[in-house]
C-alpha cells in the first residue's frame, strides 16, 4: 500500500502546483486576508476558522470544483522515469505515426503558402485594422476570394492514415487469418464490449429516467421530468461540479444546460477572462494569419450551408479567429499526442528561445473544424463565454478526435470500438457490407470525427454532448455510430454498393439519439 500512498501524494503535489498558478489561488489568498476582519476569526484557531469561513462562503466549493476539473483533465502522474513524450502517448509507433502525419500537414500548409505567395502571418495596415474592428460583429458579410484556398486536410485523408497504422510488434500478416482484424483498423487496442459498456453507462439503463426519452410529449412530466428539473436547479444552486457531472448523465433540461455545462467545465466568467478575450480580439485586429483564411473557408463550406447553424456564422469567426491566437491552448499539448508546429526565427534554428509556434495556439484547422463550435452557439450568446466554453471543450475532448493516440477516447480507439461492436453484435450486417466494398467505418468515421455535429438535429446533438460531459469520455460516439447502423440494418442488408449504403445513412437528422443508445446497449438480444 506504500505505492498507493506515494502515488496519492504525488497527485496532490501536482494539483497543488497547478492551482498555485491560477486565478483561484490569488482570489483565495485575498479572501483569507479579508476574512481576518471578521469577528468569528480568532487568532488561537486561525486555521480552522478560516477553513470554516471558506466552507460557509462557498469558496471551498470553488476549490473543490477546481481540483475536480484538474483530475478530470490531466492524466495521473506517471512513472518518474517516463519522459514527457510518454505522457503524451505511451506507444512509440503511434508517436511516430502522429509525427509523420504532422509533417505531412505542415508540408501541405507550407506549399499552399508558397503557391499563393501569401505570408503565414502579416501585420495589418492601420486602415485595414479600423475596417475589421467596425465589421467585427458581421464578418460573415465579407466575401473574400477564397477560391484558391483548400482545406489542409479532410477527415477522409486522416482515415487513410489510421487504416495504415501498424504495430511493428504485432504480426498479423497481409493475408486474412484469424489474427487480422476484419475492419479497417489493425491495431490491437483494448476496447470495451457491451457488458463493460453497460457497466460504464449504467445511468442510460432501461429503468432510469432519461431526457431524450422520458420527456417526450406522451409521458406525463410528473413521472420524471419535473423532478429532474428540480434536482438540476438544486445542483446549480450548490455549484458543485462533480454533482453536475453525475446529474447530466441523465440529460440536461434545455433551460439549465448552459449553466450546467459551464459548471462542469469549471468556467466562470471573471473580468480577467473577458479581458483575455478582448486581448485576443486585439491580436486578430492587428495581425492577419494564413489560418484565418482556412477558417473563413471552412465556415463558408460547412456551417454557413447548414440549416441550423448558418445564423451563427459571425459568432464562429469571432471564436475561431481568437482561438488561433490563444497561446494558453499550448498547455494541452502536454497530454495530447500531437505537437504544435514549431518554427524558428530566421538564423536561430534549434534555439528554443527563438522558437515560435504556428499558429500561435498550435492547432491547424481541418475541413469541418468549425462544426465543433457551431452547436455551442445555441447555448451561449456572450462571445467571451462562448469562447471559453469552446476552448475548454476542445482541450478536454475534441482534440482527441483528430490526433493519433492509444487513449480510450482517442479516435483510433473509437474507430476500433465501433468496428468491434458492429462485428460482434451485427455480424451478418458487417459481413455483408464488407462484401459489397462498403466497410462501415468509411461511412461512420466522419460522424465520429465531428462528434456528430452537423449530422444530428441540434436538440439531439446537445443531448449526446450532455453524456460526453457526464461520462468524461467520447466512447459514446462509437456506441451511437453502431446503434445507427443497427437501426438501419434492414435497409443496409439490401444495398449492393458503397454509394447505396451511404445513401441509406446520409440523413441522420430524424434520429432520436437516446432511444437508439438505450436499445443498443440494454435491449438488444445478443
Amino acid at each position: 500500500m506504500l505505492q498507493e500512498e506515494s502515488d496519492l501524494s504525488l497527485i496532490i503535489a501536482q494539483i497543488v502546483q497547478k492551482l498555485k498558478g491560477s486565478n483561484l489561488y490569488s482570489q483565495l489568498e485575498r479572501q483569507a486576508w479579508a476574512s481576518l476582519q471578521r469577528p468569528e476569526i480568532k487568532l488561537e484557531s486561525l486555521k480552522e476558522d478560516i477553513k470554516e469561513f471558506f466552507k460557509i462562503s462557498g469558496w471551498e466549493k470553488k476549490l473543490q470544483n477546481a481540483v475536480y476539473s484538474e483530475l478530470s483533465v490531466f492524466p495521473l502522474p506517471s512513472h518518474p522515469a517516463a519522459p514527457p513524450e510518454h505522457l503524451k502517448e505511451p506507444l512509440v509507433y503511434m508517436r511516430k505515426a502522429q509525427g509523420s502525419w504532422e509533417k505531412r500537414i505542415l508540408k501541405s500548409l507550407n506549399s499552399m503558402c508558397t503557391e499563393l505567395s501569401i505570408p503565414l502571418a502579416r501585420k495589418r495596415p492601420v486602415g485595414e485594422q479600423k475596417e475589421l474592428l467596425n465589421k467585427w460583429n458581421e464578418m460573415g458579410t465579407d466575401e473574400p476570394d477564397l477560391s484558391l484556398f483548400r482545406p489542409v486536410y479532410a477527415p477522409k485523408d486522416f482515415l487513410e492514415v489510421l487504416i495504415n497504422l501498424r504495430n511493428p510488434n504485432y504480426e498479423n500478416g497481409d493475408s486474412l487469418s484469424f489474427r487480422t482484424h476484419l475492419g479497417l483498423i489493425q491495431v490491437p487496442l483494448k476496447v470495451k464490449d457491451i457488458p463493460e459498456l453497460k457497466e460504464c453507462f449504467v445511468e442510460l439503463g432501461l429503468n432510469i429516467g432519461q431526457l431524450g426519452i422520458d420527456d417526450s410529449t406522451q409521458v406525463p412530466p410528473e413521472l420524471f421530468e419535473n423532478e429532474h428539473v428540480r434536482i438540476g436547479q438544486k445542483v446549480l444552486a450548490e455549484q458543485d461540479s462533480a454533482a453536475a457531472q453525475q446529474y447530466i448523465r441523465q440529460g440536461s433540461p434545455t433551460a439549465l444546460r448552459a449553466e450546467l455545462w459551464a459548471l462542469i467545465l469549471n468556467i466562470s466568467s471573471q473580468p480577467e477572462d473577458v479581458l483575455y478575450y478582448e486581448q485576443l480580439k486585439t491580436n486578430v485586429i492587428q495581425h492577419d494569419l494564413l489560418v484565418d483564411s482556412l477558417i473563413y473557408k471552412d465556415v463558408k463550406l460547412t456551417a454557413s450551408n447548414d440549416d441550423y447553424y448558418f445564423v451563427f456564422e459571425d459568432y464562429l469567426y469571432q471564436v475561431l479567429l481568437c482561438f488561433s491566437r490563444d497561446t494558453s491552448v499550448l498547455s494541452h499539448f502536454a497530454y495530447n499526442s500531437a505537437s504544435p508546429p514549431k518554427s524558428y526565427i530566421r538564423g536561430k534554428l534549434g534555439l528554443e528561445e527563438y522558437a515560435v509556434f504556428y499558429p500561435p495556439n498550435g492547432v491547424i484547422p481541418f475541413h469541418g473544424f468549425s462544426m465543433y463550435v457551431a452547436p455551442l452557439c445555441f447555448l451561449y450568446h456572450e462571445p467571451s463565454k462562448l469562447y471559453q466554453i469552446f476552448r475548454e471543450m476542445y482541450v478536454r475532448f475534441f482534440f482527441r478526435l483528430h490526433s493519433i493516440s492509444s487513449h480510450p477516447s482517442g479516435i483510433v480507439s473509437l474507430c476500433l470500438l465501433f468496428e468491434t461492436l458492429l462485428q460482434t453484435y451485427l455480424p451478418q450486417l458487417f459481413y455483408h457490407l464488407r462484401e459489397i466494398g462498403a466497410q462501415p467505418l468509411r461511412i461512420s468515421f466522419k460522424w465520429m470525427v465531428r462528434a456528430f455535429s452537423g449530422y444530428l438535429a441540434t436538440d439531439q446533438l446537445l443531448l449526446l454532448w450532455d453524456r460526453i460531459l457526464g461520462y468524461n469520455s467520447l466512447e459514446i460516439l462509437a456506441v451511437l455510430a453502431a446503434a445507427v447502423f443497427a437501426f438501419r440494418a434492414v435497409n443496409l442488408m439490401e444495398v449492393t454498393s458503397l454509394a447505396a449504403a451511404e445513401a441509406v445513412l446520409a440523413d441522420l437528422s430524424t434520429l432520436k439519439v437516446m432511444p437508439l443508445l438505450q436499445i443498443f446497449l440494454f435491449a438488444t438480444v445478443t
Partner: protein
Amino acid sequence: MSRILVPCHVKGTVALQVGDVRTSQGRPGVLVIDVTFPSVAPFELQEITFKNYYTAFLSIRVRQHTSAHTPAKWVTCLRDYCLMPDPHSEEGAQEYVSLFKHQSPSMTFPKWLSHPVPCEQPALLCEGLPDPSRVSSEVQQMWALTEMIRASHTSARIGRFDVDGCYD
C-alpha cells in the same frame, strides 16, 4: 539514506524453447534475461526500474549466496507478475515499471519480495466445492444410467408429471 544506481550487466535474451530453434515453427513465449552484478560490495536492492516492451508476465529469480559453506541457491522473488492485463491488446505494453523491496528483512544480497513467495504445491481448493473425485464418480454413474436408458429404447411415453388433481 541516499539511493544510487547499482552497476549491472544485462545479458541478451535467451529463448526457452524445446528442440532446435532453427527448425521449429513456433515462436517461444518465454525469454530469459540474465542480470549480473560485477564484483560489487554487498548492497540492499531497493528498486528495479525498466521499460516494458510487450512482456505480459514477469518472474524474477535470484541466486543467493547465504554463507561461504553452503552452495548458492536460486530463490524465486517474483512469479508471473502481470505487466499486461490483456496480452492481446496494448494495455501496459510499453509502460515504465518499478518493482520495490517490500516488507522484507534487510539482507546483504538482494532478497526482497514484491509479492509473497508462492508455495510450490498446487493451490488448495477453496471451501464449498465438492471433492472432485467424488463428483467424477457420481457423474460416471449418471452417464452409465443414461447409456442404459438409451440402449433400452421403449415406445412407452414418459407421461406428464401428473400430481393428482393439479390439472383440474
